[in-house]
């Protein structure tokens, strides 16, 4: 079977979609694309330069690494506690066994804020009540003074 050499259009389409790294190119077309690079180095270089810029942008996003805590949490959910402890013992670590952790730390934060708000409201109301009581006491005293004056 005779295969047609890769066209410039197809090479461009591959680079635009998959980037400049040949390892990401479709496996079935990788050899033909490399052959195109040999055959048309200037065209290939120009097309790949643009794609390299986007690759570099994408590559600047750091990959998250799972913490040890997360690893142990997952193991704790998958295996019986005794087995997890045995595995942890082999690794000389204390497993953090928390199969049912809170759905989100935001909930704890929200709960804390709600409690703080409630405490503030209660404190404020009490303070308000105390102030109102003081004012009423003053009114009574003033009224008493007036009545004393009236009685003269």
């Amino acid at each position, binding site marked *: 079977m005779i295969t047609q050499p890769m066209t410039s259009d197809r090479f461009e*389409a591959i680079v*635009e*979609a*998959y*980037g400049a790294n040949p390892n*990401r190119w*479709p*496996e079935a077309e990788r050899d033909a694309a490399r052959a195109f690079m040999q055959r048309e180095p200037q065209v290939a270089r120009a097309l790949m330069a643009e*794609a390299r*810029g*986007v690759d*570099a*942008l*994408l590559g*600047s*996003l*750091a*990959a*998250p*690494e*799972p913490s040890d805590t*997360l*690893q142990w*949490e*997952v*193991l704790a*959910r*998958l*295996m019986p506690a005794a*087995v997890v402890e*045995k*595995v942890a013992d082999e690794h000389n670590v204390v497993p953090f066994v928390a199969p049912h952790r809170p*759905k*989100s*730390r*935001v909930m704890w934060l929200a709960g804390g804020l709600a409690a703080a708000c409630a405490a503030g409201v209660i404190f404020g109301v009490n303070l308000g009540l105390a102030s109102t009581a003081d004012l009423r006491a003053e009114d009574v005293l003033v009224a008493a003074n007036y009545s004393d004056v009236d009685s003269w």
Partner: protein
Amino acid sequence: MSNVTRLSEGHRYMGQKMDSLSDPDEALIAAVARGDAAATQALVSRKLPRVLSLARRLLSDAIEAEDVAQEALLRMWKQAPHWVPGRARLDTWLHKVAVNLCYDRLRRRKDTVDANEVELVDTGANPTQRLDQQQASAQVEAALNALPERQKLAIVLCYYQELSNIEAAGLMEVSVEALESLLSRGRRQLKALLSEQRTDLLGGGPPAKDRKPELKLVTSKLSAS
């Protein structure tokens, strides 16, 4: 806003696409199914980073990504005794489960962002300061989040998760041609969104006085409909 659509987790479709590929995890999943603790440990070590990375990219939330990673691995572990070799690659199946878990959360959150919600803000408080790696990551993440959902998923699967085009297309239930189109459009849009910042992000940016406003992600809460 683009629709967040769950992917089918059935094996049939993926099986048709994946027949020609051998699964390097077959022996491992068989050992997990037998209750082998070491195999379970190996499975977690091998798969957790990839699932966490996928969830982190799709959700842009570290805590939610950890929850999704845990749930996806738990489902894989439960699936182990019922796993039929040759019908699908474990990695592809796991990716599909994780993507669906992420989409469920995104749908609940209702805060997907489109390109119109990325606005330019002049942050010229300290124009001589070069953007550091953290800022660069944040800007790229914001631009990725601004892409339509399918374009973002295609880029995440092919670039970050390093799935082959056949695997990614099978997972997304589209043809390879459609996947390529999503990738090209996604990369073009990403380039356009970050064009002003590109020289800075890659180093060797213009003089401070010539700097353009930088990208800022604005997340809008969309009402449930």
